């Protein structure tokens, strides 16, 4: 089949079963957009800023597990997309981003809207390509999808010069793929697995440390089973919320800087830690020399470079988490006696009773944590939750009752403000019949506010709940704790009227100052089936607690803030 480069792009997407592309056109990618116009295999959702195209594709990918796809043009179109790529890369999200480039004949001349796109994207993608010959395009697109979703997933960027999108070539799309230099390891080493299970059986105080890898590998079910048969208590990272399900009696909660006391104590007092696909982020470990000091560590990860990067590992296992845990289960059934850990579980539960996650509710002013808990109560358990970045993000991680993997969509590694709204649009597009809530802050929401228009136009009615403290709250909290309350550039009392704002885009808005108003607003927003913004006026000075100050130790948390 002879096709133009642009037609090849469409045809490749069709074969990859892509059902939606988020994007924004421009000169260098116009040939591709002309073919978008002519086809009806996939929907194209026009965003209002390229950053949002990438975040929307990202939200689609995180919630569905499928590869997210976005189109942007050269130059500023591409540079706008970079934050999105970096966000996806830090959290290992499968994505293919196609950018236009100036014609090959003009590359290197500082042509209009020319920028070295692959030079810029190189450190924030899993892999990238500059397509120099149309005959390579089918293979490159096949590889791009394969690389994005295999091994440790990640975004792949394909930069296509305009003349290549016009050139005609033979289209042969490889059915299967074998790359000479890229062969991820899925199966764990059997001997290592056996040794690891023996070490667990001999331990007295084991803890499961579950990371984002458990989501990427779709391992939730086997992880729950492993925990159940062994009776080992579990902690989740921000990226792993939902893996165990909050009803699970073995789940202590989130660990790390704003983790709960029992989770952090479990890490500190464990004699063996079983790491299921986490990456030992500094926001999790605190001071490294004190981190899990008494524990031998088993680390299972599909990315060998993740193992031993931060802390030395006693039992490294390279492989797909689901695959490895499946291999561990029969051995664990045979060797591990779950009753042996009873006193350990009792101790951790006691920690939880002494220092549970808590806040002082009030009748005078709405507490942000109350809003999150309340949404959890009012919604059915299958709503999807996205967030922006800041205090509201941490409160959501702490207080929302997550029940299934992929339910929680948040920018962990990069911590990108402005992620929430476009990501919620991607989630809603993946699950049109599920509720898509975005918990956001008055700072973050303004970073991609233009996407309200996209949500209205694309009929993806997402509900934004602003926990409005009129501060860049998380930064303000650090200023309160560590900078003598010098609120440098964080006190933002000048705000738009969020109700009028969303109405002007064609959505519905609510300003809420009491609990009763909140209940009504949320129910009304859901019923309206419109893009909604609920501006909740919350306690301005509430802090996220407990907290391990940066560089502090997990067992020495700040449980309360005293003036």
């Amino acid at each position, binding site marked *: 089949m002879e096709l133009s480069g642009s037609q090849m792009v469409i045809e490749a997407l069709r074969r990859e079963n892509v059902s939606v592309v988020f994007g924004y056109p421009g000169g260098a990618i116009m040939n591709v957009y002309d073919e978008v116009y002519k086809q009806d295999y996939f929907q194209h959702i026009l965003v209002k800023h390229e950053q949002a195209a990438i975040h929307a594709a990202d939200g689609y990918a995180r919630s569905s597990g499928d590869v997210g796809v976005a189109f942007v043009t050269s130059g500023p179109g591409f540079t706008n997309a970079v934050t999105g790529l970096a966000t996806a890369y830090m959290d290992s999200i499968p994505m293919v981003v196609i950018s236009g480039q100036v014609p090959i004949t003009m590359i290197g001349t500082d042509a209009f809207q020319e920028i070295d796109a692959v030079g810029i994207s*190189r450190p924030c993608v899993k892999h990238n390509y500059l397509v120099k010959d149309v005959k390579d395009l089918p293979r490159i697109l096949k590889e791009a999808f394969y690389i994005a979703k295999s091994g440790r997933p990640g975004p792949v960027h394909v930069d296509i010069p305009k003349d290549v999108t016009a050139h005609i070539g033979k289209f042969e799309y490889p059915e299967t793929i074998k790359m000479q*230099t890229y062969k991820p390891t899925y199966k764990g080493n059997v001997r290592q697995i056996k040794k690891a299970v023996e070490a667990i059986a001999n331990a007295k105080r084991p803890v499961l440390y579950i990371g984002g890898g458990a989501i990427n590998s779709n391992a939730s079910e086997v992880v729950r089973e492993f925990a159940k048969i062994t009776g080992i208590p579990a902690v989740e990272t921000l990226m792993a919320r939902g893996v165990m399900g909050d009803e699970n009696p073995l789940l202590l909660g989130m660990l790390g800087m704003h983790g709960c006391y029992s989770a952090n104590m479990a890490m500190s007092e464990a004699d063996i830690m079983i790491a299921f696909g986490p990456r030992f982020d500094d926001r999790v470990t605190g001071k490294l020399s004190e981190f899990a000091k008494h524990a031998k560590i088993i680390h299972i990860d599909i990315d*060998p*470079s993740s193992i*031993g990067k931060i802390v030395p590992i006693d039992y490294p296992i390279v492989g797909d988490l689901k695959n490895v845990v499946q291999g561990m289960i029969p051995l664990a059934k045979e060797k591990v006696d779950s009753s042996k850990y009873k006193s350990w579980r009792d101790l951790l539960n006691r920690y939880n009773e002494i220092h549970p996650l808590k806040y002082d509710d009030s009748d005078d002013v709405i507490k942000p944590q109350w809003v999150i808990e309340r949404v959890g109560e009012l919604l059915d358990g299958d709503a999807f939750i996205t967030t922006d970045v800041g205090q509201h993000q941490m409160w959501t991680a702490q207080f929302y009752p997550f029940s299934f993997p992929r339910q929680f969509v948040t920018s962990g590694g990069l911590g990108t403000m402005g992620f929430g709204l476009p990501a919620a649009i991607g989630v809603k597009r993946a699950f049109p019949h599920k509720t898509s809530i975005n918990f956001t802050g008055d700072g973050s929401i303004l970073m991609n506010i233009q996407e309200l228009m996209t949500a209205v136009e694309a009929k993806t009615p997402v509900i934004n709940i602003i926990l409005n403290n009129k501060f860049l709250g998380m930064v303000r909290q650090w200023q309160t704790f560590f900078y003598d309350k010098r609120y440098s550039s964080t006190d933002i009392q000048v705000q738009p009227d969020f109700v009028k704002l969303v109405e002007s885009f064609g959505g519905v808005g609510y300003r809420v100052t009491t609990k009763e108003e909140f209940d009504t607003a949320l129910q009304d927003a859901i019923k309206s089936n419109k893009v909604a913004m609920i501006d909740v006026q919350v306690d301005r000075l509430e802090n996220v607690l407990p907290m391990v100050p940066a560089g502090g130790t997990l067992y020495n948390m700040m449980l309360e803030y005293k003036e």
Partner: protein
Amino acid sequence: MENIRRVLSVIVLNEDGVLSRISGLFAGRGYNIDSLTVAPVPNTNLSRLTIVTSGNQRVLEQIVKQLHKLIPTYKVIESAEFVEKEMALVKIPLNEDFNGLDAMLKAYNGTIANSGENFIVVMVADDSKRVDNFLKAIKKYNPIEMVRGGSVALDV
């Protein structure tokens, strides 16, 4: 932890941009490159890079893993035993007294590579430490210019 010098041979697909992926990896993660040489592997679609780097044990392990993680990387060889050679060229003015130069060249496997009206160019190929020594020793002939090539290595 102790700082260790390490010679790595990295076999990669010989494709556009592969060198920038490798140099970018080192720059972005703050790893050292003491020297780096590249050339195609004959009759294949591969290139061989020889990278001399240094760092503590943990860093060196990460370097190898991160190199492996790059999609076009075929193989990373970090054997403890290898033949390592580096080349240097030195241009020396002719009006010098060349007393002892022959003996010195001989000691470092060197030869005279070329000569012009006012200068000669000598070359040596030896392991890096010895090239260091040679370049120190040759100073007494007031060299006009010197260039060294970076290590190449083969595991044995």
